[in-house]
């Protein structure tokens, strides 16, 4: 019997020990190699795929738009925060341009509703806990409850039902009429979608079918509520375009022939239409157009981008101009055949988020959601009416 003395090993044990050491070395070797290779893959990823956002410095003379359109002289306007940062999205203006209105729930779910802040500054105020589609004068609200659409005069709570089969309604500017669409709502070939536009009196009576459109739909009210504007075809094979339809007899007039107008926006009084033509083979047609609802010729503007009406015939455009150092405002006066740059990206900062901006009904102010702090900012628009 072999007595094993402390600290001594047999030959076979030495061999096993060496084998273990060799195993450790191999393990360490592969561990290091694999770890290093894994690290190098990650490092390689960083090297290959990481990009620094290039700093853009463009001299004023090369700023598109600013080079084409004269800059309104005066002190460059600077936006001012009118709400708490991060408070709210989708601001709208009260009819008198004195309030900014938006959905909020400042004290938790039970506090949800339509809130407002005075344009001149002041506390957040609950206007109504009812959320819905409001009439132009904000006196009426339409909402969905249990599959039924109601209209409510929210000041006194009077409400009545609308037989729109649960579909969203559109108030006429004078609150005398309402309209809604019924028809294709699934995702399908938009060219063959069919929608019927229904009209009723504001109290939900006098319901009648006005027109059926193919490949289009309701776009807005015109002539103070005596006509509507629709896009599409009035018959399955007829001409496509923007149409004015008289409420009185349903007669349609083709205002502009086009297959698929995008982003159709009526002016506040419904006398002008702004719309986009994109990706047509006749490339000169592609861009931003304005069209009087009287049937007079349409005009293509020299800028394309985001647009809102400032007043009848005057459109504010934020050009889709990524080469410029920042967003800037231009204005097109269509009846006056004039255009200006309202703000320069070099002097006024407009960090707009979500394309979320609106112009006040009096045309003096612009509100926008900031991409920097998610607050609502107010900008006083330069006045251009009295320029030569």
């Amino acid at each position: 019997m072999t007595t094993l003395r402390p600290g001594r090993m047999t030959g076979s044990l030495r061999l096993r020990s060496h084998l273990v050491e060799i195993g450790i070395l191999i393990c360490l070797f592969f561990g290091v190699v694999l770890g290093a290779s894994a690290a190098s893959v990650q490092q390689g990823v960083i090297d290959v795929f990481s990009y620094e956002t290039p700093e853009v410095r463009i001299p004023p003379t090369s700023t598109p738009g600013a080079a084409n359109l004269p800059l309104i002289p005066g002190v460059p306007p600077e936006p001012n925060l009118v709400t708490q940062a991060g408070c709210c999205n989708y601001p709208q203006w009260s009819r008198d341009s004195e309030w900014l209105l938006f959905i909020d729930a400042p004290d938790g779910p039970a506090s949800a509703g339509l809130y407002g802040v005075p344009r001149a500054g002041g506390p957040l105020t609950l206007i109504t806990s009812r959320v819905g589609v409001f009439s132009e004068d904000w006196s009426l609200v339409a909402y969905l409850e249990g599959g039924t659409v109601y209209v409510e005069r929210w000041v006194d709570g009077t409400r009545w039902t609308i037989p729109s089969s649960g579909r969203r309604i559109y108030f006429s500017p004078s609150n005398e009429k309402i309209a809604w669409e019924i028809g294709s709502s699934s995702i399908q070939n938009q060219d063959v979608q069919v929608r019927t536009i229904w009209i009723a009196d504001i109290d939900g009576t006098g319901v009648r079918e006005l027109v059926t459109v193919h490949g289009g739909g309701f776009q807005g009210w015109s002539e103070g509520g005596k006509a509507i504007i629709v896009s599409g075809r009035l018959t399955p094979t007829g001409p496509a375009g923007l149409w004015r339809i008289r409420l009185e007899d349903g007669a349609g007039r083709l205002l502009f022939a086009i297959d698929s107008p995008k982003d159709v926006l009526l002016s506040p009084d419904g006398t002008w239409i702004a719309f986009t033509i994109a990706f047509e083979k006749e490339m000169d047609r592609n861009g931003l157009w304005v069209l009087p609802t009287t049937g007079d010729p349409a005009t293509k503007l020299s800028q394309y981008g985001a647009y809102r009406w400032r007043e009848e015939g005057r459109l504010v455009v934020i050009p889709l101009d990524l080469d410029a150092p920042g967003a800037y405002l231009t204005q097109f006066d269509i009846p006056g055949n004039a255009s200006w740059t309202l703000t320069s990206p070099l002097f006024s900062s407009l960090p707009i988020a979500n394309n979320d901006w609106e112009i006040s009904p009096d045309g003096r102010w612009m509100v926008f959601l900031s991409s920097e702090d998610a607050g609502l900012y107010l900008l006083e628009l330069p006045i251009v009416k009295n320029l030569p």
Partner: protein
Amino acid sequence: MIFSRREVLLNSWSDNKSRLWFRLPTVVGFLCAFVALITLVGIARADPGDELDGRPFIMPFAGNPGPNTWLFIQPYGNTTFAYEYRYSVYYGGQGLHFGIDLEAPCGTPILAIGDGIVESVDSWHGAGPHNLMINHANGYASFYGHLLVRARLSIGQRVKAGEVVALSGDPDRTCTSRPHLHLEIRDVETQAIAYNPMDLIDADWERIVMSGDSPVRFEQDLANPGQWVGLYDQPITHFGHGLLNDYASPWPYDW
């Protein structure tokens, strides 16, 4: 030989000590292997791009947006459109639009958003009539949907960032209905997670969305109206999990 109790203990300790010395390399070896294994598994299971700074990908279209080139039409996330179709088209994507939509005429060249290897051509992932998936080394996969024709690439083929890999098409196959590119960014490992491409593609998105007559619309939960209403403030999509936006009090309504 008689050993005192102390000697027995000492011998025993020495004996154990020698065994410990003998076993120590084995233990260390196993520990080493274990640590290496855990490290490798950890690397493999880490979220894609965990160690990346900034946005690793480029735009799928060349040039600037405009009415003659391409236009942004729908962001990733809790859009009103996805909400409207949360029980049908977007049910499997938790009610979210799990990619971005860029409108472009049929036949517009689509660029690989990063270096990668073709994972699939016309797979079961949908977004017909044709689609393409490319795996990237950073753990993300880019998915290009509504392609005009089958991409002329083979599985396993290497592509470079900016290389033309497909042509944009129209899901309705008319090239007039709604021609656009649907672009998703998923994880390579499971392909069951979709990320917000706006977080990963190096572009000035807030400027790119500045076109048209209205804001980018997200569905609002009246109980929390500020949730998921920004281009970048959107949840990750876990395909096959429950709806994230089946709100009791939504705005706009389900009308």
